[in-house]
């Protein structure tokens, strides 16, 4: 009786210690697996890449400016001013553009259903949004959807049976024109598993390259009511 009590005490004590050890061990394992610093490394490398890219672009901008200044000093000043205007208007989408590229037509898809009727797959705004984004990723220099020039404020939204682009209503068929390297643009769109590959399952979509496409200027006007250029430079 006495002996067995002593043994029970011993076992209890050892078990207790064992439990404590287990707890400590478990806590330790949990603490590991924090890969915060690794995430931080990733963030930093991306930030460094961004800075390198920015600096390269800024250097390019400097040489561009130097060329403009040299034009002002050495050639016709009036002409230089007009050239500057043409360039910034092109960048803003305020001039019609011409060049090689691709034309993408997007239309509803009509599917014959089992009962002899027809099912319609409609074009949604996000289909156009994705196509435009993909064309931009492939280096498109100017894009228009149904002759609506895509600029920095261009929205593509559903509104009932219409799709609103640059505040104007449009409906199918949609024709997206993009100027750029025709092969690159076409290849990016037709990539296996790419945007056109996916959309062609649900829409009637065709891509063709063209040696010469003309894209109209942005027809609207933007009144900047909220945005102001920052005048003072921070020092």
């Amino acid at each position, binding site marked *: 009786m006495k*002996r067995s009590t002593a043994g029970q005490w*011993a076992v209890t004590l050892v078990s207790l210690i064992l439990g404590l050890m*287990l707890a400590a*061990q478990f806590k*330790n*394992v949990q603490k590991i697996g924090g890969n915060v610093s690794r995430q931080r*490394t990733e963030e*930093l*490398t991306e*930030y*460094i890449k*961004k*800075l*390198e*890219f*920015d*600096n390269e*672009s*800024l250097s390019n901008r*400097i040489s561009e*400016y130097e060329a403009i*200044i040299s034009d*002002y000093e050495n050639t016709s*000043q*009036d002409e230089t*001013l*007009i050239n500057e*205007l043409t360039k*910034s*208007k*092109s*960048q*803003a*989408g305020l*001039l*019609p553009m*011409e*060049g*090689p*590229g691709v034309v993408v037509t997007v239309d509803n898809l009509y599917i014959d259903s089992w009962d002899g009727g027809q099912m319609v797959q409609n074009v949604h705004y996000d289909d156009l949004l994705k196509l435009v984004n993909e064309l931009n*990723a492939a280096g498109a*220099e*100017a*894009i228009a959807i149904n002759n609506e*020039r895509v*600029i920095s*404020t*261009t929205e*593509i*939204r*559903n509104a009932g049976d219409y799709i*609103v682009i640059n505040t104007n209503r449009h409906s199918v068929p949609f024709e997206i024109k993009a100027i750029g*390297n025709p092969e690159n643009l076409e290849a990016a769109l037709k990539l296996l598993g790419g945007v056109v590959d996916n959309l062609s399952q649900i829409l009637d979509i065709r891509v063709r390259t063209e040696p010469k496409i*003309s894209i109209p200027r942005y027809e609207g006007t*933007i009144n*900047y009511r*909220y*945005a102001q*250029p920052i005048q003072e*430079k921070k020092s």
Partner: protein
Amino acid sequence: MKKKKEIWVLTLICILAGFFAVRVFEAQHELLGLSNMLTPQSLDQYLEGKTLARIEGYLKDAKVLEERRDTLLEEIRALEAIIDQHEKDVAERTERGEQIRQQLQSSRMMAGMLDIEGPGVEIVLDDRKRDTILDSDPGMIGYYIVHDSDLLEVVNELRAAGAEAVSINGVRITGSSRISCGGPTINVGKEQRFAPPFVIHAIGDPDALASYFQRDDSIYQTLIFWGLRFDIKKKDLVQIPRYIGDIDFKYAKPLEEGE
């Protein structure tokens, strides 16, 4: 006989206890030596140390690059002042010169070539926080993270709500910006890549911009449903930098206007 048996049991338990004691000690104190390095705990600590050293190196690199950027920006401002003076001179001399100068200024504004400020909103988008749901169902992870298409939708809705300018993590979004997926990061603009959280700034009517996301068909509802972070704050003053990047037209040529 009974006593002997108990001793055996105790011995076994003691061995186990000893084993755990060593494990715990090993895990808590980083000891040098090959055998310790091979245990997963200390290997992790070893890598952690290396990573910290690397982070320090990166921070230094970043600082150098930041200084270089600031110098370049100063140079650019100086050159812009010279160009501006030339433009003024020409404008004064020529007929319609002032008109051309104004057109120049407004097209630069539209092209995103100016640093701008004004009232607007700040949106912070982030992946869902690690929580119990996330851990128990790894197959659903796609629903809990920010995708390039989500950013595209947010920018599109801001434009629809009348935003005059938009930036993502300090990168000005223009008509030819792309927002695409690059593994765990998202490419914004031409080359810049970002990991979440995404901070989106937009200049425009703060009320109109913020309330647009309350619509039933807004991307906001979807992302909130999946538990992602989507904070919108109205701001009296938002600053959006100019587009930094090359815009060269290799294929597109401007056509003269008929005016």
